[in-house]
């Protein structure tokens, strides 16, 4: 006992925790990454590195796509933090009407698949360059320039419209925990609204801004659907379209090299974000006391700002959802708003229609896929967030040189790895039995493990932003009274972080149930998931059916978001003024 206490005293505080999470991340993230890296270092394949970096091909294979990718990532991150932050501020801190509605709508775009948002853009702005008829604007006789129809501008706008919800979710969670006492004190000493905003609110939500920005950045640089739909017709390639293409045409090593470079580049930007975060002494504002601040009165700006917020939300949610619905009802993809039928949803098999395919609700697999998807989503969201909180506590409370940087980077990687590479690495690593451990191949455990790893970026980023706000004083006080690590987590950190945690659970859940890339490599017939079902329909050209399944996924996500809003409301009645 005394020997242990003595050892403890000599070791830096939190070393055990840090090493523990590092070991977890090594198993879940570093090992698969190493598997991928080793494949590119194989003597027969190592030439892929010079092909990519220093050959006549490099320009089109890596440099131009890399430039596009980083521009896209930075633009989207900035746009998302701006729009997400603006909406979060309106919803959480001001007296804007329809706050509940806006708060709900602003979480939705992220749940709508980005291809639907890109499709919505095309429906409006498509021009004649690529045949197939123009979009709505050209239909009205308005010429659409190529730059607005294809390439960087539309891709960036579509990705902002998709990912700002991430920024909103993370920032709103942080804003809601801003200590009312601070704001009140400032207001009583006569500080202006602007001063309160820039002097108090902004600094304390800085971790959330950075977390949100980083997530949006990672989402944008790894997104495939939007640049593939809107960029390829003008030959705009990003690292993600390039690396998927390379894997698809069998040049797997080049694809993996591009993935590793994408990780490297993103790590540089992430490190800058971390530097910013670490540069500040403390963001702690939740001290376990203090109430909510009074809401800012918007005054004359109330009307216009409300209209703007509603407009942003409606355009980015209703439009793509309407399009998805139309695409699940219209027999012809080329005229989405005519001849609607419910066949694709509830029809009986009829050889004269849709090649005899019955509606999705007549697919015996649907119900099983639905329950399994929700179950796996819930389990994975829970697991990822347990690890996420541990990592976040280790990173904010017990920073240790070297280890912390590794932990921080590792927990961010999965978002940038192509799912197919990640899935393949998991089979290679954990498919066969290891020592006394049984083979995980073909079990839903393997699927859940891989998905948990893939969700870590969301859990860790959100966790960090929240934990960073919680004052260490309470924790310290509890420790002095003899409370153990897990007791402190359970009794202090978790309750205080509940808002952020809820947001993160939602993000993970939504992501898991719509994930395809990892799932398709690891699923078994005993674990059919909704995303696989949707893929099956789409891969054989049954788009209406695929869109219908996508809408089912979207409905589950929306229900989850609604539930989260309800829970939040009960937890803290902040939505009512």
């Amino acid at each position, binding site marked *: 006992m005394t020997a242990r206490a003595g050892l403890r005293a000599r070791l830096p505080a939190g070393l055990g925790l840090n090493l523990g999470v590092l070991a977890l991340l090594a198993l879940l993230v570093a090992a698969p990454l190493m598997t991928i890296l080793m494949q590119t270092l194989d003597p027969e394949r190592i030439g892929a590195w010079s092909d990519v970096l220093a050959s006549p091909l490099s320009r089109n294979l890596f440099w131009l796509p890399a430039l596009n990718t980083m521009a896209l990532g930075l633009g989207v991150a900035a746009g998302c933090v701006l729009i997400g932050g603006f909406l979060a501020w309106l919803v959480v801190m001001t007296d804007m009407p329809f706050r509940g509605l806006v708060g709900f709508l602003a979480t939705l775009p992220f749940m709508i698949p980005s291809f639907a948002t890109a499709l919505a853009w095309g429906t409006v702005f498509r021009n004649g360059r*690529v*045949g197939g008829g123009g979009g709505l604007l050209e239909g009205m006789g308005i010429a659409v320039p190529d730059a607005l129809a294809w390439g960087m501008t539309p891709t960036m706008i579509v990705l902002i419209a998709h990912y700002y919800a991430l920024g909103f979710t993370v920032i709103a969670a942080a804003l809601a925990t801003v200590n009312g006492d601070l704001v009140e004190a400032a207001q009583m000493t006569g500080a202006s609204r602007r001063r309160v905003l820039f002097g108090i609110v902004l600094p304390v939500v800085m971790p959330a801004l950075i977390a949100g920005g980083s997530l949006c950045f990672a989402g944008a640089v790894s997104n495939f659907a939007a640049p593939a739909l809107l960029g390829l*017709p003008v030959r705009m390639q990003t690292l993600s379209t390039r690396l998927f293409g390379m*894997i698809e*045409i*069998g040049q797997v090593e080049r694809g993996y090299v591009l993935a590793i470079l994408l990780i490297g580049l993103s790590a540089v930007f992430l490190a800058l974000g971390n530097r910013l975060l670490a540069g500040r002494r403390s963001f702690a504002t939740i001290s376990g006391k203090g109430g909510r601040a009074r809401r800012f009165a918007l005054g004359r700006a109330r009307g216009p700002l409300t209209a703007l917020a509603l407009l942003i939300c409606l355009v980015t949610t209703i439009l793509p959802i309407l399009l998805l619905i139309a695409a699940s009802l219209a027999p012809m993809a080329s005229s989405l708003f005519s001849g609607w039928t419910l066949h694709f949803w509830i029809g009986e098999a009829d050889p004269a229609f849709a090649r005899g395919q019955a509606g999705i609700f007549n697919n015996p697999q649907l119900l099983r896929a639905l329950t399994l998807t929700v179950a796996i989503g819930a389990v994975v969201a829970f697991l990822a967030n347990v690890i996420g909180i541990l990592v976040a506590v280790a990173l904010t409370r017990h920073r240790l040189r070297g280890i912390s940087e590794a932990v921080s980077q590792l927990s961010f990687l999965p978002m940038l790895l192509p799912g197919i590479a990640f899935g393949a690495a998991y089979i290679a690593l954990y*498919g*066969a039995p290891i020592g006394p451990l049984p083979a995980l191949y073909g079990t839903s455990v393997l699927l859940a493990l891989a998905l948990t790893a893939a969700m870590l970026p969301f859990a860790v980023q959100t966790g960090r932003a929240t934990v960073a706000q919680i004052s260490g004083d309470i924790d310290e006080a509890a420790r002095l009274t003899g409370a153990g690590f897990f007791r402190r987590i359970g009794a202090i950190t978790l309750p205080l972080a509940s808002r952020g945690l809820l947001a993160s659970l939602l993000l993970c859940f939504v992501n898991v149930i719509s994930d395809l890339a990892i799932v398709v490599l690891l699923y078994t017939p005993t674990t059919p998931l909704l995303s696989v079902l949707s893929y099956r329909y789409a*891969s054989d050209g049954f788009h209406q059916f695929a869109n219908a399944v996508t809408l089912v996924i979207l409905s589950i996500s929306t229900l989850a978001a609604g539930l989260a809003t309800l829970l939040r409301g009960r937890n803290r009645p902040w939505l009512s003024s």
Partner: protein
Amino acid sequence: MRTAILSACLTLPLAAPGLAQDLDALPPADLLPLAQAEGKVTVYAFTSRIGRVETAFEAAYPGIDMVGFDMSSTEMIARLRSEAGAGIANADVIYVSDAPLVLSELLASGLIAPYVPPRVAAALPDSAKAPLLQQRLSTKVLMYNEESYPDGAPVGNLWDLTREEWSGKVVMVDPLQRGDYLDLMTEIVLRSDEMATAYEAAFGQPIALDEGVADAGRQFITDLFQNDVVLFGSTDDVNVAIGAKGQEAAPIGFTSYSDRRDNEDEGWALQVANEVVPANGIVFPALLALNPEGQNPAAARLAIDFLMGDDSETGGEGFAPFYVAGDWATRNDITPHPDAIPLAEFNGWQIDPQQTAPIRAEVADLILQLQ
């Protein structure tokens, strides 16, 4: 550990190499009891149509559970490789497209093995029996909009696509995003002699190659990209671009002949340009193979036999999901689909995957530089 698993597999009576060869010669009637003893067969397929095969197979051979997985050819290759690396033999039958890739990535490393059911061997041309069994043939060929061009295809020669009037009006999937389009480009290079002849037919003079361009095929690809060919991410987008009705001067481009069967459902006017010289594109196989380490060798062979179709005119239930206008059975005793041009009259190049494989990557590099 891996060797332990391998040797464990090899000592299993049914997986013994000698017996496997015996199995190859058995007719379906003799395979059936062995397969029923195994009770199960797992198929990795690149199409969801395997679901319909599953139902038909289980009805035809009660007592054998067919388990179908569908995933893209790329995903299948990744999965098979990592499964083999982990000593797992989950799949029994592999049904896959992307032949050139399959030959170099799977067959060459022994991850899959050939099998030709003796029942249908006599009805197959040699090219459909080796190096792997070919079940059916699909296409990536030049298609046009028959509403926009009611008098027939607006081009008669592939080289027409490089003319100014088609600038920005030729569409296809990015050959660096989809293997079958890369195979198409590769075939054009392999057929450089024919391309050179066609050039002369189009422009009335022998082809003059640009500096650094090795042959007529590569010159065509170069010219096509310089003529602002429009690239998409998927064939669906290509089909809409070419086929959507109500277009005044629709683009032309490369897609699947069999997609024409969706014309009515989708409101398209897709039609194949079959009179184009030297050819309108490529005809390529879907392959069937065994997993040499598979745990159900008899059921695997029975399943492949079933997928090749029965002795009726259209191949019966096993082949029904694949009996569509615009695809062709490799078996010469299955009647061609009445709604499509028969293979013999179709003007596409039938690819030889063994020829395509070696230069495919090099053609990809050429395209990479052109983009």
